[in-house]
């Protein structure tokens, strides 16, 4: 069946709600309305308001109550409508969601999946398109996942819903309806903590995740036409990150370009390049590069196209890296 990413996530939630009675979806407008991105469309009608719950408008309490539910053995799936509103709940994630297992030496664990549509590119208002992943990756105890395709989204979310750890599931808004791809109807899982080689190559490693992945794949295809054969690494899980796959790829190619839309300073590329330097420095034939959002406030919708990395910047970075001898 060909599905968009929004439909693939919906299909996954549907299957998981049917599979595990402990799963509860909650958030603003997730019920009757099916969510502002329609990701939970139809689930309220099918599973009822006990399992798909519209909550009052308060992000901190949506996450905070989910923490209490999860500690008691339920598996809540809170949704925050937009990344820019996740900050009202950030203290709950930082102070409690990330720490309950450690604080209680495993007595209480929080098997919950916090779904947050992330990233820009949909021409929405301020606070509706933020590259927030570093804020979550920076918290030990949280699994951070960013799917890159409809197929990936369904399999990764199914795994997240079986995880013993709290998961922040960052759904790239830009890809919700960008395209359809073949997604199996039956349940399948994609393991957390394992990156994938989205395209094999030998000349340079293009490392990315989430929203930028399809664009990077296109850039890689075009570069191939021009005689450069890049490998594309899709990280899938940002924390705990699969550093072995990153290292192996860079050791093979000797070159690396990292792409994400979050700001450059302390964006995830900083960590990725630091790890490459630690583990693959002597295999490098050129200085690693990063293509990221600028270190600015993300412009409002009229100017946002000037902010996000695009094919022209990515291809230029690859060519510059390849030109180093």
């Amino acid at each position: 069946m060909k599905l968009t990413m929004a439909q693939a996530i919906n299909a996954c939630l549907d299957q998981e709600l049917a599979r595990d009675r402990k799963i509860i979806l909650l958030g603003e407008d997730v019920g009757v309305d099916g969510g502002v991105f329609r990701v939970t469309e139809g689930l309220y009608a099918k599973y009822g308001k006990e399992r798909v719950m519209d909550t009052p408008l308060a992000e901190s309490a949506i996450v905070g109550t989910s923490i209490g539910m999860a500690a008691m053995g339920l598996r809540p799936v809170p949704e925050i409508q937009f990344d820019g509103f996740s900050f009202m709940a950030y203290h709950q994630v930082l102070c409690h969601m990330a720490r309950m297992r450690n604080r209680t030496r495993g007595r209480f664990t929080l098997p919950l999946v916090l779904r947050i549509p992330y990233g820009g590119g949909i021409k929405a208002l301020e606070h509706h398109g933020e590259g927030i992943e570093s804020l979550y990756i920076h918290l030990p105890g949280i699994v951070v996942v960013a799917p890159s395709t409809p197929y990936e989204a369904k399999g990764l979310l199914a795994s997240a819903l079986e995880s013993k750890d709290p998961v922040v599931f960052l759904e790239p808004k830009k890809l919700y309806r960008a395209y359809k791809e073949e997604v199996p109807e039956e349940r399948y899982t994609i393991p957390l903590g394992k990156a994938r080689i989205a395209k094999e190559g030998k000349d340079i490693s293009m490392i990315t995740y989430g929203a930028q992945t399809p664009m990077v794949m296109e850039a890689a295809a075009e570069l191939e036409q021009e005689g450069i054969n890049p490998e594309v690494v899709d990280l899938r899980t940002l924390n705990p990150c699969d550093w072995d796959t990153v290292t192996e790829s860079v050791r093979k190619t000797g070159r690396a370009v990292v792409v994400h839309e979050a700001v450059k300073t302390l964006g995830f590329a900083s960590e990725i390049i630091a790890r490459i330097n630690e583990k693959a420095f002597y295999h490098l034939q050129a200085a690693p590069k990063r293509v990221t959002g600028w270190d600015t406030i993300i412009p409002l919708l009229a100017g946002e196209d000037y902010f996000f990395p695009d094919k022209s910047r990515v291809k230029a970075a690859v060519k510059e890296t390849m030109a180093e001898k």
Partner: protein
Amino acid sequence: MARRRVYEGSVDYLQILNEKGVADKKLEPKLSPGILKTMFELMLLTRAYDDKSVKLQRQGRMGTYAPILGQEAVGAAAALALGKDDWVLPTYRETQAYIARGVPLEKLFMYWKGIEEGMNFPEGTNSFPFAIPIGTHLPHAVGIAFALKRAGRKQAMLTFVGDGGTSQGDFHESLNFAGVWQVPLVVVIVNNHWAISVPRSEQSASATLAQKGLGYGIPCIQVDGNDALAVYKAVSDALINARSGKGPTLIEAVTYRMSMHTTADDPTKYRSDKEVNEWKKRDPIERFRKYLQKKKLWTKNYEARAMERFSKQIDEAVAKMEAYKGDPHDMFKYVWSEITDNLKEQMAEMEKFYGAGKP
């Protein structure tokens, strides 16, 4: 067109035991001698454990500690109102609630010594670890209450928050959610008049803190927090309502923090001895002692024997706390459900430098 009143609300105040230890005959709950003595003894134990904790901190044998002194009745009486299957989530100043639930004393000493294992409460105590960031635990309490309701087993959740905590967003969000969801939750505001150095009068312009429940459609009452009977009665009634599906209750217990905010605080900087001395007259234990004496349930000898028992219990717990050998590897073990490769690498590095221990 018309202008008419669309809402009216009021808040009751409940005191059963006055400052002289005399109970109001009409209001006095019919409690067995057993439960009355348990209540008294828990308050005595709390005061002794509290006193010991401050001393241990002063001797450098424990870390920063938040004294309970003067507030023994609230946490003790409220927790004793719980049924076996109910749950509790106190703040750091109602740890006597944990004692009431059967959490071993050494766990509490360990926690204040800075040992995570102290918050690993035994199964069956139905106790949830307190949160240090003020008020942030309240949504957890709502979530726990939600889960209890979902399980359909007539259980209730009891939680506490200070007067300062009522200013936090999480307090309001939690009451709002609790009201909308009608969860089996009892929230006790422990109004001890001081949020470190900020007095109750600067915390909120509302006449009572209890009335904040009205804004969320939650029944509310103010009680004398130094009157264990009033606390017990109000919390018991609220728990019965909660278990029978009548939703949450907000209780303001008016008490006073007789000691420091924590052992790192100097209250003489911001409040007068005169005020503190006024509150001494309303001591919850003194009052309850007189009450028991009138009921012929108290003798000097009875209290002395109880204190002897507690002192032994405390010494044993302190010995266990001091004998506990933590393992620094544990910091890597409980981050995620499994130790990641990244953490294994860092754990090896830690071992290399500190494997033989740190002085």
